[in-house]
């Protein structure tokens, strides 16, 4: 048994190396004084300066942040309701369909979701003069995708929840709504918080669905990165990558701290 664990442990280390080597290289080369990622020409911050003066990139980043924030909030609300319903309401009309609809976006290939959402918006444009393709269509697409993740997190947390706390609150005079607001919600808030962070990250990073539903005017950060990257390696992207990794690490640590803070 020890031998088995040792083999597994070796592969674990290899796995980490596999996961982090490319990222490490990208970060290192963001400080490279040369355009190439194959030759190290000395430490330099030139690409950092270039990126921060790249108007197009910066405005794309700003757009992405705004989209991510709004869609994370929407996902949190919808995912909270969906997760709550799945955890607490054992039977209602259409429950199987509901459960499937909530989980399916998690595994659906993004090209399929992308094309379907675009067709919806085109159709609504034809019929209702629809929302114009841009900020809101992207937000809607991202929300639909992310709420599945939030719902799963909330559902799991509620499954572990001590229901006698809710019963005690009702016994003491709290209506079901008040019970939820004063007892349940505060105690699942950390899980909800990490769900929000997850939705935020997923939105920030999304390329394919966004490409389908964004209009001509909107360019999100991933879209910019993609069009740049198709032409080859670009050191500004390396800089961006470093920033993203730093933010992701911070978000992840925060999320981990939140989930461990079970009051």
């Amino acid at each position: 048994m020890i031998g088995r664990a040792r083999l597994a442990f070796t592969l674990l280390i290899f796995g980490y190396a596999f996961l982090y080597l490319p990222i490490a290289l990208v970060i290192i080369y963001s400080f490279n004084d040369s355009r190439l990622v194959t030759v190290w020409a000395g430490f330099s911050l030139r690409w950092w300066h270039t990126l921060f003066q790249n108007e197009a990139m910066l405005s794309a980043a700003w757009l992405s942040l705004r989209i991510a924030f709004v869609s994370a909030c929407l996902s949190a609300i919808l995912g909270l309701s969906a997760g709550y319903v799945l955890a607490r309401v054992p039977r209602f009309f259409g429950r199987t369909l509901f459960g499937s609809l909530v989980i399916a976006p998690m595994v659906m290939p993004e090209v399929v979701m992308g094309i379907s959402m675009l067709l919806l918006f085109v159709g609504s444009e034809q019929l209702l003069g629809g929302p114009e393709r841009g900020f809101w269509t992207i937000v809607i697409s991202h929300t639909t995708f992310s709420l599945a993740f939030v719902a799963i997190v909330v559902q799991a947390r509620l499954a572990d929840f001590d229901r006698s706390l809710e019963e005690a609150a009702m016994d003491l005079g709290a209506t079901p709504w008040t019970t939820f607001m004063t007892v349940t919600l505060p105690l699942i808030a950390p899980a909800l918080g990490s769900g929000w962070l997850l939705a935020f990250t997923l939105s920030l990073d999304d390329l394919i669905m966004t490409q389908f539903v964004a209009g001509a005017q909107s360019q999100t950060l991933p879209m910019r990165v993609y069009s740049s990257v198709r032409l080859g390696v670009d050191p500004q992207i390396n800089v961006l990558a470093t920033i993203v990794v730093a933010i992701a690490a911070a978000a992840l640590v925060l999320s981990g701290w939140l989930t461990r803070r079970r009051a």
Partner: protein
Amino acid sequence: MNAPIVRIEGATKRFGAVVAVDNVDLEIARGELFALLGGSGCGKSTLLRLLAGLETPDSGRILIDGEDMTGVPPHRRPVNMMFQSYALFPHMDVAANVGYGLRRDGTPKSEIAARVAQVLALVRLEELGGRRPSQLSGGQRQRVALARALIKRPKILLLDEPLAALDRKLREGTRFELVRLQEQLGLTFIVVTHDQEEAMSMASRLAVMNAGRIVQTGAPHELYEQPASRFVADFIGIANILETGPGQWLALRPEKIALHAEPADAAHTMAGRIVDIAYEGGRSLYRVAVDEGRIMIASSANVLRTREGPFHRGQDVWLSWAADAGHPLRE
């Protein structure tokens, strides 16, 4: 004023194929400390939850202080419960926990603070208002749960296995405290427990439940000395069940049987041999093998401080008991 404070009429509750509460009728008087006693799965907790409003009966009625509360949700009943797991809100401190019910009623903050302080003093936790539940011992948590349930001065206080999580010594002390509190406050307490010693020593009246039904209700003395069935006789304390005829039995308590080293002269006697002596400190239980391989259990107090009792294993003895020592049973 003499109307019962609780009246349960024909209450039935099913969970799937299991009938947890089976057509139960019960009346509880104002100011009683009433106990629901039974083994696990007998339905006592379900019955309590029906009173609290945490479950709705499939049929029957629940009347509290004359009002039909059958469909009324828990937050609108004049009933409060002390949960078995205490169910203290982990994200609030003791004072906030205790004051929760009053906040829900919209009581002004100053009054809440005063009443919280008052009830914490009542359960002797005055200094601990600012602590979190995780920082308290088991006994302290139990008192917080009690305080939280008492503060609204409910018509009925329900206690679900209040002593189960406490250790032995604490249990005995808390038992007295609960009785004292109940008498002091004049509230009606309904206690659910599986521990018959607890039920007998605390309650002014109790009901024994089995398989969703109440098999006997009465004062502790009645249930002990006049059990209604073999089940009750056996459940409460130890009983020797002797068959006295077709469909007739006699319940005989061990302490009613005297042991003699020589043949005795009494209304009823029986010869046997001691197969085992269980020394319990204050008393000893003697397992005596009598005719046809039956075992009778007799007990006597260890009045003398001698190392060896008056009897030993393997000894031939005679048992005797008075004419009215046993109680006839038809079930």
